[in-house]
């Protein structure tokens, strides 16, 4: 008697469950397909971010070497201004040069430098902007579009050459506007995992000639202008080289994090996929068995 009831109960329950499942067996299959395609795409993403990380590390080693050479070059160029104790002018036309690049996926590089420039522009809203790199241009054009006088792209693909820095300096001089103080904003390479937005002044002819220690030097009249123009190109070159190294290191850590996250997601989705797959199989089995036992 109890065995009869026991046998009836599972059938009733199965029938109830079957009627519920018959309403939505397709759902379970669709979910399984969805999970499968997500899993495949995450695996692809992990491969891509992994490759990008490796590319960034190789580029980083080269970029770092170029950066050290450019530091030696830039510091040599700075010597005279340091020894002459030149100070930048505080009034007059101001030019801000922002060194960034065109490509993204490099962590906070572009947003940090844009933040630093915005903070400066809040204090000096009339400064002119020359932007090297599309990413910074996009960020700064949102609020300071009227300040931008010149912008360059195709920056950051390879290690910067002096020819690039020279042509940028040349274009700035071709603008024809006389600037009383020039400042270059760039990301300074502190270590393989950290960088810092910094600014350095590029001195003008007048600030050099009015330096406290300038009289110590035996220098011809018209050389001061050539010297400061040359020094501007040197400073731009240095900023570009350091920015490039910072970008590669930031991209490497960003892609490293992305690969790790993708790996975590792959693990989670694999488990979910297997569980769903087993659930689907179990449901099918229950359907079959219910159907078979109801026939009996």
């Amino acid at each position, binding site marked *: 008697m109890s065995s009869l009831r026991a046998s009836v109960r599972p059938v009733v329950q199965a029938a109830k469950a079957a009627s519920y499942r018959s309403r939505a067996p397709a759902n379970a299959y669709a979910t399984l397909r969805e999970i499968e395609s997500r899993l495949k795409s995450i695996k692809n993403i992990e491969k891509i971010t992994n490759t990008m990380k490796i590319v960034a590390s190789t580029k980083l080693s080269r970029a770092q070497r*170029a950066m050290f*050479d*450019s530091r*030696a*070059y830039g*510091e*040599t*160029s*700075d*010597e*005279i201004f*340091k*020894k002459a104790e030149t100070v930048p002018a505080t009034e007059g036309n101001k030019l801000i040069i922002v060194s960034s690049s065109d490509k993204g996926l490099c962590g906070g590089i572009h947003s940090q430098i844009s933040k630093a420039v915005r903070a400066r522009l809040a204090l000096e809203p009339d400064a002119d902007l020359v932007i090297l790199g599309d990413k910074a241009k996009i960020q700064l054009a949102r609020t300071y579009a009227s300040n931008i006088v010149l912008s360059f792209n195709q920056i950051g693909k390879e290690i910067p*050459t*002096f020819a690039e*820095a020279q042509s940028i300096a040349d274009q700035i001089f071709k603008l024809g506007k006389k600037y009383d103080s020039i400042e270059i904003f760039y990301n*300074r390479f502190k270590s393989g995992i950290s960088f810092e937005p910094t600014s350095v002044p590029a001195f003008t002819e007048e600030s050099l000639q009015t330096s406290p220690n300038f009289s*110590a*030097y*035996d*220098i*011809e009249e018209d*050389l001061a202008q*050539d*010297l400061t123009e*040359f020094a501007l190109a*040197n400073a731009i*070159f240095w900023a570009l080289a350091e920015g490039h190294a910072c970008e590669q290191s930031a991209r490497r850590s960003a892609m490293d994090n992305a690969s790790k996250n993708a790996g975590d997601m792959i693990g989670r989705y694999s488990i979910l996929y297997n569980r769903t797959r087993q659930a689907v199989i179990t449901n099918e089995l229950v359907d079959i068995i219910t159907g078979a036992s109801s026939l009996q």
Partner: protein
Amino acid sequence: MSALRLATRSVLRSRQLAAPWRGSFRGYAEVPSDRIRLNLTLPHQSIYKDVDVVQVNLPATTGDLGVLANHVPTVEQLRPGVIDVVEESGATKQFFVSGGFATVQPGSLLSINAIEAFPVEDFSPEAIRAQLAEAQKNATSGSEIDQVEAKIELEVLEALAAVAK
């Protein structure tokens, strides 16, 4: 155990001291009185960095000048020509430069920023002749900018041809 920790800590500290700051920790040790400290740097390479040498001859736009210890501080623009460096060992190295700036700082420090500099031996006369012909052609045809660029190229190549053997 404590000795090990002491050793690692002193190593860390000495590494921190050696780390360069942006202010260019240029060994403030005095330059020997008969030497000049030379920094000859290019954008992609430092040929000499804080090296004490005896004498440096520079091709300046105002004329050739030789820089010895205790030279008066001066700034010179370089024309295409040869820089001679007489090192402490007595050997003389020659580099052909296309241009740049040389500054003698107070304290017997010579800073040279050159765009390109190569040892004179590295040039091949045939290549110089071929480029000279090309530049001479361009100097008389093409747009104004091209002509000016070709004239500058000619200036460098002629100086180079005079030096390379």
